[in-house]
């Protein structure tokens, strides 16, 4: 599954799995720009090179107040 088609893939899963994944990345020494325990609805952007994760960046979820102007 580490093929090139996942280089620009969006994956949606559960907080429990994301927490474990982020901890494993941290243990492997991947630079994390974000907390180990992210908020519900948050996103991690993983930078990859040759199918290998080189960095991970956290994007907080947009809250109701953030979206107030759009609804």
């Amino acid at each position, binding site marked *: *599954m580490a093929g090139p088609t996942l280089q620009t893939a969006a994956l*949606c899963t559960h907080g429990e799995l994301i927490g474990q994944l982020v901890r494993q990345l941290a243990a492997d020494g991947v630079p994390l720009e974000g907390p180990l325990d992210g908020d519900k609805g948050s996103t991690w952007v993983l930078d990859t090179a040759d199918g290998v994760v080189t960095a991970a960046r956290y994007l907080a979820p947009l809250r109701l107040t953030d979206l107030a102007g759009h609804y």
Partner: protein
Amino acid sequence: MVKRPITTTEDQRTTFIELFFDLVFVYAVTQTVSLVHEELSWAGVGHALVVFWLVWWAWTQFTWALNSADTTHPAVEAVMLAATAVAFLMAVTVPDAFGDAGGWFAATYIAVRVVGLGVYGRVAWDDVAKRTAVRRFAVLSVGGLAAVAADGLAGGDAREPLSFPGRLEAHGLLGRLRDYPITRMLTSPALRCQQTVIPLSQRRAVPIELAEDLSVEAPAASMRRWWPARRCKLRRYVPTAS
């Protein structure tokens, strides 16, 4: 007029209703194969064995009970037909007993077992030793049936819809990920996860792919293997305003 007893000590021929009842249980057992067919792994084999054991146990309970019952008694025939109908519904849900139909399997299975316990208790009522044995069996069964019910309800987690704030955050992803190219979209089969990516899928015209590796039951290692990590220096996280 003498009331016809519901029990008998005479040898009995197998009735057509009993054969029909057995046939439905044969169907339920054949259905367990689909659990392995759907998931060809040790987990799939384990699921099939658990369901097979439950189905076999329910059938066995009826055979014990009917040994003492007069199987030509109209009340016994009526109960057997009702149990057969519920057992058929149970058998239909077997292939998805560990998925979305978990609640239905648990409900119909418990109904079959409760009817079976009722018959067993009724035919053993006049014999003190048998009554005590059935009571002990019923108490033990309650534990097993509670486990089936709990598992059936737990299976419902996959059907939990996305909350209202979650739906708004799902639309928020359109802005959050605006600058990122997305050519594939994979999600846990859980309904709330699918609903999270629907707005993004529609905006980007990228189909949604369901991936069991992303389900809440999957070990993180199954997702982790998608991206092996390079060992490098850890940087401290500094929160920034979003």
